[in-house]
């Protein structure tokens, strides 16, 4: 446990405590609208951390991470809608599905030494392939039913491009076990997951696994010469990242109660996932969280201002994201967090 906090100067610990303390009491301090924004922010903070393991720690660029979000979402949702399976159990299955998917992507890529850009393209292709597949789910299910002779009803309903809808029940009472309830419940669930993810990442980074990942990220050849089985550790990174991302998907499904392949598997989603970690600070622990907290509110702020000015154009928010990314890549290639940490001396002792 002490390894989590060791090396951190006193002021960082205090800052961390204040930060999470504020978040803990936030629902009583803000209105419903701000709360909903915070839920989204925490969602991206969590998802960003999961992605950061693969890229920031191990250096493998995935641009198709929406694949795991979507698979996680659909798995839990379909099980819930068709068989009434509890979402937490559904999560376990979802984690299994995404981990296997991650293993497939990783195996295809790493066995054949596909790295860098090629790997990124491969991840995009997988996500797109899955998106189109889910768009045509009814067709595919029907074809499978014909082929195997199993009645169509036996297959899980995935909804196709028209969407998969979860029954929305009690919004007043909070049922944590079934993930049905008011936004405030979802807020605390996401807050807990974000905090847990942070602790987990901290623990990972300080472990042998973390050191080996960073070695691979910095120089694969040298890493191998030091006894590191590069293939195996890359696989672990991909699978772990995919497994963690599954939860983001499950959360998404039960919070928004509808799933459309166009949305959840889209490249836009993949890019939104990675903006936080990159702008916040790739490979750092707090970067993804900072990035999410900076981006979402700013983006929403811009939309608000424009709406107030009578302008409602789709795409403005994304242009803003693009410009932010551009500015960060050009002027702050390591992200905002390292700069902040240095300025306020919040980082680990050097």
């Amino acid at each position: 446990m002490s390894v989590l906090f060791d090396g951190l100067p006193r002021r960082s610990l205090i800052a961390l405590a204040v930060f999470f303390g504020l978040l803990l009491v936030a629902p009583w301090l803000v209105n419903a609208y701000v709360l909903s924004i915070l839920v989204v922010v925490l969602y991206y903070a969590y998802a960003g951390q999961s992605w950061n393991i693969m890229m920031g720690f191990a250096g493998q660029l995935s641009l198709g991470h929406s694949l795991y979000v979507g698979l996680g979402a659909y798995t839990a949702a379909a099980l819930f809608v068709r068989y009434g399976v509890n979402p937490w159990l559904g999560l376990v299955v979802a984690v299994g599905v995404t981990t296997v998917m991650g293993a497939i992507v990783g195996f295809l890529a790493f066995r054949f030494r596909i790295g860098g850009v090629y790997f990124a393209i491969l991840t995009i292709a997988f996500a797109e392939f899955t998106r189109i597949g889910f768009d045509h789910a009814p067709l595919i299910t029907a074809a499978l039913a014909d082929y195997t002779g199993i009645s169509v009803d036996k297959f899980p309903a995935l909804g196709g491009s028209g969407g998969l809808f979860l029954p929305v029940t009690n919004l007043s009472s909070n049922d944590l076990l079934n993930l049905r309830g008011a936004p405030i419940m979802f807020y605390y669930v996401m807050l807990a997951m974000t905090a847990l993810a942070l602790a987990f990442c901290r623990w990972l980074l300080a472990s042998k696994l973390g050191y080996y990942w960073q070695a691979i990220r910095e120089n694969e050849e040298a890493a191998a010469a030091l006894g590191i089985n590069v293939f195996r550790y890359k696989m672990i990174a991909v699978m772990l990242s995919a497994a963690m991302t599954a939860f983001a998907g499950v959360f998404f499904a039960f919070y928004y109660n509808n799933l459309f392949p166009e949305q959840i598997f889209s490249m836009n989603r993949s890019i939104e996932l990675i903006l936080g970690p990159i702008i916040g600070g790739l490979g750092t622990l707090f970067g993804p969280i900072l990035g999410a907290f900076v981006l979402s509110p700013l983006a929403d702020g811009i939309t608000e201002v424009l709406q107030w000015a009578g302008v409602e154009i789709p795409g403005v928010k994304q242009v803003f994201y693009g410009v932010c990314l551009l500015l960060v890549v050009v002027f702050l290639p390591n992200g905002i967090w390292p700069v902040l940490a240095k300025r306020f001396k919040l980082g680990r002792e050097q």
Partner: protein
Amino acid sequence: MALLEVRGIGKSFRGLRALHDVSFDVPAGAIHAMIGPNGAGKTTCFNVMAGVYKPDAGSIHFDGKPIAGLRPDQICRAGIGRTFQVVKPFPGLSVLDNVMVGALNATDSVRQARIEALRVLELLHLADKARHVASSLTLPERKRIEVARAMATRPKLLLLDEVMAGLRPTEVDEMVAVFRRVNQETGTTILLIEHVMRAVMALAQHIVVLHYGEKICEGAPVDVVRDPAVLECYLGEEAV
């Protein structure tokens, strides 16, 4: 049975013959050197031993077990540590972290690895730079990190690829002293590729000479440096 037994190694790259029928032994606890003009195939030979290349012919036995064709990480775990001619530090990591990665080859405990890494850094006079980021160090310092990292893996055999290049004579003497000490205290066997004769003569108990991918001579340093074939390949026919 020698610690390292290299027999009849051959390696070609698309028709260009880099190594042909190279054989030599390195007994446990010895310090041997491999010399030869540029392009003689020394680094290729190292790369074959370290698992970067699969030999087209021949065999390599280490500690009695065949290792030709194994992956680099398997070879490291078998007990061979190596440095690279063009240094490959982990630029974004601190010097200490760099060496810890090496030390983690021998232990699963990060704490143990840190202790071991500090010990090795001390040996190579890099301890004061432990927290510095590797990319901020000078080239000679980065060479020392490279050596420290390889040493931290607790190898039985250390393959050093031109680690003295670019060092001033006093620095060369320091490195020679380090290697002698490591060899004496831990019994680590050392095989070095070197052009810096000062280091070769000071360290090596036995020298193997490569030229155009073939072994042309081997023996004690005093004999090798007077051998006509060796002189010819370095200085040309007329000089002999």
